[in-house]
């Protein structure tokens, strides 16, 4: 008997209504659609798109696009660790160190988030929505490498419940859940989220406490370039733009390498998963604002540095383009992107309390997105009404 037939005939009825595991149908269904081609595609007649691209496959694209940034990020974790120790044990060991530090965070974030989502789906007897597959990978990528696992668990639970399920789950949320996680961590445990000591792993890869026999540095402290921007000690000459572009600077795990992020951006744009209007206008807005600031202030970072430092590129490519929380209208997308770009740089430069503005800017943009859409739609209606009445 073929595997497919076996599943359809023997296992399927167990989970259908009246079956033995009726209550676990949501979980079964989520694995089934994840592993096999969806059972129901659009009917083969009429004007419809006939294919099996559902949101699971769209989100797999986002995950693929995140891979380069994650790989470079992992290597960079090990590289920064080696720099702090003053040793060099080769790129492979550095990557391995980063992998060991990064992987538990991914596991925790997926386990907590998917656990809650599946529990809620089972309660409502709905399909498990796919949205968290991307969110669960985004969360560990945007936290500092020294973040304890329990913090990630608490923050993920908070954001899945209060930023997503409360609003009705995937597709209904107002704010980007991954950024809510980051914002929660930022406000709840500010010491673990910013400052000099959290961005470089100094203990062993698995846990923070030094293990006997392993080389560790304790109390390593080095300002990230963004922290230097925030407290006014930034010197555009000492921080090489190339380092920031390639990603060998300290920062949150996967946002350091602008190059890797741009690779992911290409994939998203080619497959048309992300909106190029939003992505481009965020970069344009950011460049515009940094050019203005650089023109008036001597030791402000240059435009290229502004775009490469911190989480700006990551937010522009992966956060702002989230189709659920962003603008829907095309004109709105330009406004939304420009707004986020400008605000990110403004917050970064003028609010010393927040070294990085990209997170706040995108959340603010999320809050404004419905308003922008409303204005665009209404102005279009009144324009056309005028044409009719004239």
């Amino acid at each position, binding site marked *: 008997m073929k595997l497919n037939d076996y599943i359809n005939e023997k296992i399927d009825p167990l989970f259908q209504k009246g079956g033995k595991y009726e209550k676990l149908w949501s979980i079964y269904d989520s694995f089934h659609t994840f592993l096999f081609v969806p059972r129901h595609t659009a009917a083969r007649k009429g004007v419809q798109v006939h294919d099996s691209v559902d949101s699971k496959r769209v989100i797999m694209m986002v995950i693929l696009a995140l891979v380069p940034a994650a790989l470079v990020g992992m290597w960079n974790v090990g590289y920064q660790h080696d720099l702090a120790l003053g040793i060099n044990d080769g790129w492979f060991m550095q990557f391995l160190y980063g992998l060991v530090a990064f992987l538990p965070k991914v596991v925790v974030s997926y386990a907590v988030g998917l656990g809650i989502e599946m529990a809620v789906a089972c309660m409502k007897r709905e399909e498990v929505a796919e949205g968290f597959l991307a969110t669960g990978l985004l969360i560990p990528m945007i936290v500092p490498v020294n973040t304890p696992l329990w913090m990630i668990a608490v923050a993920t639970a908070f954001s899945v419940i209060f930023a997503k399920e409360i609003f009705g789950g995937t597709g209904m949320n107002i704010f980007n859940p991954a950024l809510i996680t980051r914002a929660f961590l930022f*406000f709840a445990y500010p010491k673990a989220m910013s400052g000099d000591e959290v961005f470089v792993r100094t203990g062993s890869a698995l846990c923070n406490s030094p293990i006997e026999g392993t080389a560790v540095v304790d109390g390593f402290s080095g300002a990230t370039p963004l922290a230097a921007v925030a407290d006014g000690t930034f010197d555009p000459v000492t921080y090489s733009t190339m380092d920031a572009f390639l990603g060998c600077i300290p920062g949150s795990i996967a946002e350091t390498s602008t190059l890797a992020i741009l690779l992911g951006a290409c994939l998203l744009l080619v497959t048309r998963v992300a909106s190029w209007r939003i992505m481009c206008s965020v970069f344009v807005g950011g460049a515009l604002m940094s050019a203005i600031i650089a023109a008036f202030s001597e030791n402000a970072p240059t435009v290229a540095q502004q775009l490469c430092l911190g989480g700006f590129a990551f937010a522009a490519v992966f956060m702002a383009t989230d189709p659920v929380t962003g603008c829907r209208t095309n004109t709105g997308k330009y406004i939304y992107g420009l707004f986020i770009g400008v605000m990110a740089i403004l917050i970064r430069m003028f609010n010393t309390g927040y070294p990085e503005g990209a997170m706040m800017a995108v959340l603010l943009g999320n809050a404004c997105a419905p308003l922008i859409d409303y204005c665009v739609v209404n102005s279009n209606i009144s324009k056309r009404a005028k044409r009719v009445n004239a």
Partner: protein
Amino acid sequence: MANEKKPGVFTGPLWTNNPVVVQVLGICSALAVTTQMKPALVMGISLTCVLAFANVIISVLRNTIPNRIRIIVQLVVVAALVILVNQILKAYVYDVSKALSVYVGLIITNCILMGRLEAFALGNKPFPALLDGLGNGIGYALILFITATLRELFGSGTLFGYDVLARFVNEAGYDGYQNCGFFTMPAAALIILGCIIWYQRAKNPDLQDK
């Protein structure tokens, strides 16, 4: 008929018709004074006293107050009571009074007060008015107390300033509890209030919006 109303007048506002989570009044102070339990408790008691006395006084005067100037009369009564409470707090619990800052004075503008005076005291006898004032005040204090307990416990790891969580976790041999700064922010109070409302609506389906 008055006998039938009495228990409802007092117990209704405690939960099923709670001024904070059902009528959604007095939210500002519920967000502002609930970081620590002590100020929240004092605030709850202050409001209960002011509301009970104001209700009784207005109810006694209700037939002599000209309708056109009733709001001003209510304000005078409430303001006098609030100043009394404020002076007592300053005299006996100065640190709490400082922590509460303007929010004691702002009891004057608390929506629960004006709401109860207008809706109940002006049309009822003094004794039911007293019960209504006490019920609403205690209902408000209850919500404040729940919110403040959660916020102080998770935000500072303490209850009434007594170190609870850190001590407990330390004895078990862990690193100790790390305060969750989020709970000290007003946003956390809003989310906790939301959760209380959520729980209450789930228990009482007739309160749900259609």
